[in-house]
């Protein structure tokens, strides 16, 4: 297999607090291949956004990467000096945030923000940067881009602003785009358009995408592979079709069961009993064990690591370890 574009190994993110250190991400490992779209799902607080922030080096203090490694095309980037990391942000890893209404600086025109970003990373003249900016806006589907580029963010609607945000994230042609819930704050009617724009433009440029969302529908339509996070740990990772159709981790199957489908008629959607543990009260063993329908003794004592499964899948569940031994 070719070298992955991004490789995260045993990433641990901790928040020192007065009452001890909270482990928000615990030994998370995954790869993103060249041109691949990796979906990252999980409940609120599972650590999806933190993973993105850790990769791009923008964890908010006091949060910090306590251990683990992040590699971008064979170069280790989690311990780079600040200035070097800054040059990677925007240039090699772009980021799209959740709320387009607050992502743009209200005091500058779209042109000013785009040109500033382009000229920070590329050695081009002002007029050249402007040409690129207009082309970008045009590409992300802003009508009359050449005229609207001199408007301020408040002149645009939410969906249009998110297109601008995507243009900004892609302005310096990054190899990886981290999209942190890019459609959550948008109207349902424009969500699909934004996802399409993001997906198309990244495919066009061969950029990989890490798509963070809690919307399984978006993942199913967009992602190549999906990683499921639970309480700061990876529960399962694998090709999106396989995971959706035949989830292996009990948490994932619970998640899938909670999604309504058009073909099935059910009185009630399945629901996972209980809620995700708080960071300071993660149970011993498997973090999912108090809510798991298939829990057995080992789950309460020993923590499961990711176990390799057929078809490039991995799952962190003792059920499959037992199987492996028996077969």
């Amino acid at each position, binding site marked *: 297999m070719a070298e992955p574009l991004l490789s995260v190994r045993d990433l641990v993110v901790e928040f020192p607090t007065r009452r001890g250190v909270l482990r928000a991400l615990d030994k998370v490992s995954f790869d993103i291949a060249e041109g691949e779209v990796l979906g990252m799902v999980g409940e609120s607080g599972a650590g999806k956004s933190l993973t993105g922030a850790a990769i791009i080096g923008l964890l908010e203090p006091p949060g910090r990467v306590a251990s683990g490694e992040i590699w971008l095309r064979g170069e280790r980037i989690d311990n780079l000096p600040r200035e070097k990391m*800054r040059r990677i*942000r925007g240039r090699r890893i772009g980021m799209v945030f959740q709320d387009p209404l607050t992502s743009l*600086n*209200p*005091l*500058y*025109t779209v042109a000013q923000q785009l040109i500033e*970003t382009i000229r920070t990373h590329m050695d081009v003249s002002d007029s050249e940067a402007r040409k690129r900016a207009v082309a970008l806006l045009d590409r992300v589907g802003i009508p009359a881009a050449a005229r609207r580029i001199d408007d301020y963010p408040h*002149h645009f609607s939410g969906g249009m602003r998110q297109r601008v945000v995507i243009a900004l*994230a892609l302005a310096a042609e990054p190899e990886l785009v981290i999209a942190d819930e890019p459609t959550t704050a948008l109207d349902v009617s424009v969500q699909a358009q934004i996802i399409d724009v993001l997906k198309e433009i990244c495919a066009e440029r061969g950029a990989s995408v890490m798509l963070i969302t809690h919307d399984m529908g978006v993942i199913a339509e967009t992602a190549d592979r999906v990683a499921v996070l639970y309480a700061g740990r990876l529960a399962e990772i694998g090709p999106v079709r396989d995971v959706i159709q035949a989830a292996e981790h009990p948490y994932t199957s619970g998640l899938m069961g909670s999604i309504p489908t058009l073909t099935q008629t059910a009185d009630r959607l399945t629901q996972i009993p209980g809620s995700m543990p708080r960071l300071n009260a993660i149970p011993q063993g498997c973090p999912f064990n108090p809510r798991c329908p298939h829990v057995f003794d080992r789950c309460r004592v020993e923590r499961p690591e990711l176990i390799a499964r057929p078809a490039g899948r991995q799952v962190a569940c003792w059920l499959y370890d037992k199987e492996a031994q028996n077969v």
Partner: protein
Amino acid sequence: MIAFILRRLAQSVLVMLTVALVAFALFRFVGDPIASMVGQETTLAERAELREALGLNDPFLIQFWNFILRAVQGDFGISYRLQQPVMELILSRLPATLELALVSGVMAFVFGVGFGVYTALNRGGWISGTVMTTSLIGVSLPTFLIGILLIWVFAVELQWLPSFGRGETVYIGNWWRTGLLTESGRASLILPAITLGLYQMTLIMRLVRAEMLEVLRTDYIKFARARGLSNRAVHFGHALKNTLVPVITITGLQMGSIIAFSIITETVFQWPGVGALFINSVRFVDVPVMAAYLMLIALVFVVINLIVDLLYYAVDPRLRVDRANARH
């Protein structure tokens, strides 16, 4: 835009009229003007004649109208105490006050914003801690005490700077006497300017710091960082500019206060400005000067507020409603 300016001007005129009413009322309530103008030997008939000649028997509205007409032409009558036209008195002392206010205002703004940004960006550092603690002195000590302390340290003990007056002054044009062009003038300005500006500086500093901390947490700052912009661009281009609207408001209001309340500083440092003139006028119930001073300060506030509103427009595009409406 023009409609906005016209509307604000109309409001300003209304404010000025209200203040004029108060100023005018001073004449009526602070004793009988005739009594303070004539001697004891004047007969009642002569007094009545004078009253008629001065128009004091006219209906209230007519008197008020005449007062405003004269005020607009810069005629506030003759000072009871100094027997000089009030406008001349004020104009001769205005440069001293304006120079003092301007220097301390600029000082307060520059150092206030500078320290504010520094302490916001270097939270927890020992320099920031020291600056923040020291700034408490600026907020909590009364102006006259700061003035006296400065005089004691720098004028009495160290003898570096003069303790009172404006030093040598020279004329620019016909009536603007400036102390900025002579060395002793500049030296004399330092202590009063610090005294007057210290409170405003700490206020601006704390405001800038609080606003910066607020703005640095916003999504657009995070996004600016995620785009790999340099720290300099993020802090000054994106963050500082977003703190400016409240900072401009406060600075503008403070500029008004600096001019209006320079009275204390001028008294402590024997600064020959309008504030000192006002204090002396109050002591001698010199109503025309008091009234004119009141009007002058009101005018200063109104003008500054107008400028502040226009600056909003320059800083924040979201307020330029007319243009946005035209687009949609």
